[in-house]
């Protein structure tokens, strides 16, 4: 597909995908100025206005906030376990910013080291991601500080570039070609990304070496421990496993969890290795910039800025990390 797509043509394409029985998730203006990823009822719902960040992330397509792992029935003489039916079929994410897609190859690592998590994998295999290159950014964006940019292809099967109100599509994978055909366009001129705001390597070094520094406490005083940073993050993937039972039937499910909650690490004995909110904020930074890169070779942060944008107390990765001594980018 070499011709540029008008907005109408793009919506019609999404309608075609929906009519073919696929689930299409895209940005929707839920309230004025509040853009959220949602399953689209039709292409008309797709938000294609001026550049705007989304509130939530596309990780819900691979790691739902609530997912049944299996069900059970309690009989007099034992327990019967029942597998959940196969998850929804093919899913397409459309018009997500590249920082959303970039988290997927990062998440693939943790869900597949040693043992494979098939709940994640089957959703991931059925997912195609069509990103929309960023035409702008806001003060919270920092993709360029974590090795990404406004048109990073990481995790995208295809990417749309907006030029003069129309969209040019490029494809990177077989999944992308299945949606847009073979003819890949030259990359159109790209927009500038946000300036590099900090050195990720310094964040990693500081979190590792200054584990016990008062820095973490001092910079977490405002934290309410609400966990919204983790919920809106495209890369945060911690979960809880819980039972729900009604009468003789029940199921075990995993729900999103967050390292900002005191209960997250509370031992049965009452001991808690992370007693203070500062310990929990440190964990969030250390896991993203230290632990995960060491273990899996990838920063567990794509610079989307959703944590800070949504934090009721003005915290988040960027506000925290830029306070780290010597974190500012080196001047050329």
């Amino acid at each position, binding site marked *: 597909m070499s011709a540029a797509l008008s907005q109408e043509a793009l919506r019609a394409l999404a309608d075609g995908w929906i009519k073919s029985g696929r689930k299409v998730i895209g940005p929707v203006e839920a309230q004025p100025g509040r853009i959220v990823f949602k399953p689209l009822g039709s292409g008309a719902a797709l938000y294609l206005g001026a550049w705007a960040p989304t509130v939530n992330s596309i990780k819900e397509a691979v790691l739902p906030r609530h997912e049944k*792992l*299996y069900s*059970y029935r*309690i009989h007099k003489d*034992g*327990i019967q*376990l029942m*597998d959940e039916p*196969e998850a929804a079929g093919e899913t397409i994410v459309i018009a997500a910013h590249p920082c959303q897609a970039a988290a997927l190859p990062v998440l693939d690592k*943790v*869900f597949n*080291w*040693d*043992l*494979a*998590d*098939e*709940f994640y994998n*089957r959703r991931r295999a059925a997912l195609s991601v069509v990103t929309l290159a960023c035409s702008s950014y806001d003060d919270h964006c920092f993709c360029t500080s974590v090795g990404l940019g406004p048109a990073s292809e990481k995790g995208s099967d295809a990417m749309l570039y907006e030029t003069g109100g129309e969209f040019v599509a490029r494809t990177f994978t077989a999944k992308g070609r299945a949606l847009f055909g073979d003819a890949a366009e030259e990359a159109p001129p790209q927009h500038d990304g946000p300036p590099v705001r900090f050195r990720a390597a310094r964040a990693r070094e500081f979190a*590792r070496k200054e*584990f*016990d520094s008062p820095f973490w406490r001092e910079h977490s005083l405002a934290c309410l421990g609400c966990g919204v940073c983790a919920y809106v993050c495209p890369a945060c*993937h*911690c*979960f*809880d*496993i*819980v*039972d729900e*039972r009604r009468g003789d039937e*029940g199921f*075990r499910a*995993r729900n999103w*969890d967050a*390292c900002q909650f005191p209960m*997250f*690490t*509370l*031992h*049965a*004995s009452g*001991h808690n*290795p*992370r007693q203070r909110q500062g310990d929990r904020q440190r*964990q969030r930074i*250390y*896991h993203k910039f*230290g*632990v995960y890169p*060491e*273990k899996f070779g990838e920063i567990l942060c794509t610079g989307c800025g959703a944590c800070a944008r949504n934090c009721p107390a003005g915290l988040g990765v960027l506000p925290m990390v830029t306070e780290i001594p010597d974190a500012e980018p080196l001047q050329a």
Partner: protein
Amino acid sequence: MQNLYKPDLMTVTKVRQHTPDVKSVSLSFQDAARAGAFHFRVGQFGIFSAFGSGESTFNICSSSNWSDRIEFCFRKVGRVTEDLWSMEEGDTIGFRGPYGNGYPVEQWRGKDLIFLGGGIAMPPIRCAIWYALENRGDYGDITIVYGARSVRDLVFVDELEEWAKHPRVRVIQCVDPGGETPEWTGEIGFVPTVFERANVPAQNAVALVIGPPIMIKNTIPVLERTGVRMSSVYTSLENRMKCGVGKCGRCNAGPVYVCKEGPVFTFEELRALPMDY
């Protein structure tokens, strides 16, 4: 689909009550093929569950040589353990595992073994003691120092007495001052001091030390004075877990996933980790 989170169903074959709030449970696999194929290393753990309440993480406290059953031991402290407490013979419990690294019992061959435990930490030591006794020729002298707050908080007391009858096995039981009864014949004092008083030669020993943080903290200097290397002193961490398979992000202690790279660490390894456990 291979479902990582779906447990094996196991039947409760025996329940023993050790203290007013501690029980141990024996389980056998309901699936015969699974029972035949199952094996584990002492020191590994499982995720045990009561259907309707949820899952909890416990050490498999039986020896890996016992092919007919696995056992775990728990204190009644929350929703899941309240439910497990009510289990009787014939009831069904869910089990996922074995998970984690376990004790390097092959590396321990030819060494004297020192087991130091406090309170509810006896079960993860018990599996190693039975294993060593069942492979007696592989190991030298065995010293067991086990303490609890009070006489009624000691668990596996009958087995402690049984172990003491074995040749080249020394068992010292102790309770915290004030925790003794008029009939108490064991020591009165804390594990570290009781162990130091016992003058156990440790030059050719490995030690397994499990207990509350304060016990471990006070035991390490005593062990250092005996000359045992910190690379030969082991413990088992207890970080809270949910998945057990390195996904849910909960059990990190600094850079390690305790569920995968632990729960067993030497103190040399622990010293390289931040205090995140």
